[in-house]
C-alpha cells in the first residue's frame, strides 16, 4: 500500500493545533510509518507542494496572504481538514467581527492604518467562508485522540465521523456534579464535546473552546445561564470568544423559529 501524502499547513493562528499532532510523542514514529508527511513547514526543512491526499489546515483567514495560501492549498488537496477552532469557527480573532467598525480594533494595533496590501487585514473568517472544507476537527487546541482517530479511520478506508455531542455527555458519564445545577456558569450543553469534559471535571465551567454544537439550543442555553445569575453581556462575550459568526447565526435561526410561534 502506498502511503497517503499528508500535509500540515498553517495560516493566521498560534500554531498550537499542529503542535497537538507533533506532541503525540511515542506514537509519532508509528504514525510516520503509515503516512508520508510531505509538507509540514513547522517541522521540516524541505516541504513539497501538492497534490496532497489529506491536508490539515490550521488557522483562520485574516489577511490577503492567508487567503491566497489557503486557495492554493485547497486546489492541491483531495481532502481538506479544518483543524482547530480558528479554522472551523474563527476563534479569538473572530471577536473583531463583533465591532461594526473594524478600524476600532485595527487602530489599537497599528500606528499607521495604511498597510501594505498583502498584510491588509481581511474580515476574520473560518476557512469554509472561502473554500470548501471536507472535515472539521474543532478545539482550541483540538484533541489528540480525535486527530488520531481521524487519521486511523482514513487509513482503514472508513469515512470518519466527527463526534458531535455536547460536553454534558462525557461530563455525566464521568458522574461529575453538574456545575449548571449548582448555579454556576458552564456552557456545556451548547458546546461540542470530545474533550472528556476536561474543564468541568476540575470544577471549571466549560468556556466553549470546541465551538457550538451543530444544533445547539442557544436561546434555552442563555436562559439557563441567566437563571444562574450570569449577565447576558458576559454570556455573549463567552459565545463570541471562540465562534462569533456561528453563535450569531444559531441565535438568528432560533429567533426566527420563535417568531413563527
Amino acid at each position, binding site marked *: 500500500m502506498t502511503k497517503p501524502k499528508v500535509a500540515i499547513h498553517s495560516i493566521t493562528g498560534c500554531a498550537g493545533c499542529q503542535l497537538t499532532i507533533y506532541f503525540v510523542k511515542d*506514537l509519532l514514529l*508509528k*504514525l510516520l*510509518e*503509515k503516512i508520508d508527511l510531505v509538507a509540514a513547514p513547522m517541522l521540516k526543512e524541505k516541504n513539497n507542494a501538492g497534490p496532497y491526499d489529506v491536508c490539515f489546515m490550521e488557522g483562520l483567514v485574516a489577511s490577503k496572504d492567508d487567503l491566497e495560501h489557503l486557495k492554493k492549498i485547497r486546489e492541491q488537496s483531495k481532502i481538506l481538514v479544518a483543524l482547530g477552532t480558528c479554522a472551523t469557527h474563527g476563534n479569538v480573532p473572530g471577536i473583531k467581527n463583533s465591532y461594526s467598525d473594524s478600524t476600532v480594533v485595527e487602530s489599537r494595533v497599528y500606528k499607521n492604518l495604511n498597510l501594505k496590501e498583502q498584510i491588509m487585514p481581511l474580515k476574520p473568517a473560518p476557512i469554509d467562508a472561502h473554500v470548501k472544507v471536507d472535515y472539521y476537527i474543532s478545539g482550541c487546541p483540538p484533541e489528540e485522540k480525535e486527530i*488520531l*482517530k481521524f*487519521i*486511523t479511520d482514513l*487509513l*482503514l478506508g472508513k469515512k470518519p*465521523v466527527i463526534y*458531535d*455531542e*455536547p460536553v*454534558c*455527555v462525557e461530563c*455525566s*458519564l464521568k*458522574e*461529575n*456534579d*453538574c456545575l*449548571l*445545577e449548582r448555579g454556576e456558569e458552564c456552557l*456545556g*450543553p*451548547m458546546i461540542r464535546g470530545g474533550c472528556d469534559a476536561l474543564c468541568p471535571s476540575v470544577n471549571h465551567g466549560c468556556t466553549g473552546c470546541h465551538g457550538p*454544537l*451543530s*444544533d*445547539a*439550543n442557544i436561546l*434555552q*442555553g442563555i*436562559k*439557563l445561564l441567566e437563571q444562574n445569575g450570569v449577565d447576558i453581556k458576559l454570556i455573549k462575550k463567552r459565545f463570541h470568544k471562540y465562534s462569533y459568526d456561528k453563535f450569531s447565526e444559531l441565535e438568528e435561526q432560533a429567533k426566527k423559529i420563535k417568531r413563527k410561534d
Partner: protein
Amino acid sequence: MGKILDKKDLKCFFEKLQKIGEVVAPVKNENISFKPVKKFSEVCFEGRSMFPIKKYFLPTKEAIAEIKNDAFVEKNDFKKRIIFGARLCDLNGLLVLDKLFLDPLYPDKIYAIRRENTILIGFACKEPLSDFCFCESMDLKDYYDLLITENNEKYYVSIGSKKGANLVTEYKDYDINLKKPVCKKKLKNKNIHDFFDEKFWEKDALKCVSCQRCTLLCPTCLCFDVADEMNIDLKLGTRNRSLDSCHSKDFTLVAGGHVFRDTKLKRYRHRVFHKIQYFKDKFEIPMCVGCGRCMEFCHSKIDFVDTINNLKK
C-alpha cells in the same frame, strides 16, 4: 416475610459480603455515586445515586472484543460483585434490561454472565427521595435478592430469591407488614397512543438542549453503539460498545447522511413514547420505573409526567 438485623448485625453482614466479592455501594462526595467500598462507614444510606447501577452490567464504554490482526477475541467479565444499597427503582431497571439482554433468542453473553455473578441487595425508601419520584405509579416488582428496610435502628431484610435467602440463614425471622413510600408525583395516564400529534410536545421540546442527561442517567436506557477502534499501527484494536442516546442527532444518522429524527421535538417525543408506550406494547411492562432522574437532572427540568397528566384531546 424475612429476617431482622440490628445495626451491629448489618455491619457484620456487610463485612461477610466482602469475602464473597467486590462490594459496590453508594458513596457520598459531591453527589452520590456507586463505587467499590471496603468500609461499612463509607456507605451512604440516604438519597439515591445520580448514575444508576446499570453501569455494572452495561458499562458506559467497554471493549467487548480485542482485535488482533483481523481476528476477534471476545472479552468476558467473571468478577463476583455485590451491589449493596440500590433503590427499588434501579433494581426494577434491571428487570427491563433483562427483558432485552436475556432474551432467549438473542442473549447478550457478557451481560448474562455479569447478572449471574452479581448479588443484588437493595435499600427500601422510607419516603420518596426527591420531588420527582413517581415509582408508585409504575407498579414496581420485588426484583432483588435482598431488600433492606430500616425502621428504628432495626433492619428488616426481605428475601427475593434463593441466592438472597442463603446469605441470611442465621438471622431471626420477622413477620410484619412494612410500609411503602407514597409519592406525591403521579403518572395518571399510561396509554398515550392518541397523543402523538406534535402540538402536545412542542412546548417541552423548545426547552430541550439535547444534553442527553435524561437518557444517560436513566436506569433503563440501554441503547448502545458499537465501533471498532484501531491503534495507529492498524494491527491491534478493540471493538467498543458505548452508551448512546436517542436525544443525539447522530443517533438516527444513516448512510447517505439522512437523519430520521432531525428535530429535538421528534427525539424528545420518541423517548417519552418508548418509555411509556412502545416498550410496554412489546414486553408488557413499561420501560419507565418512575425514578424521576430524567426530570431531576434535566437542565431545563422538563417534566414529562406533568405534560402527560395534562394531555387532553
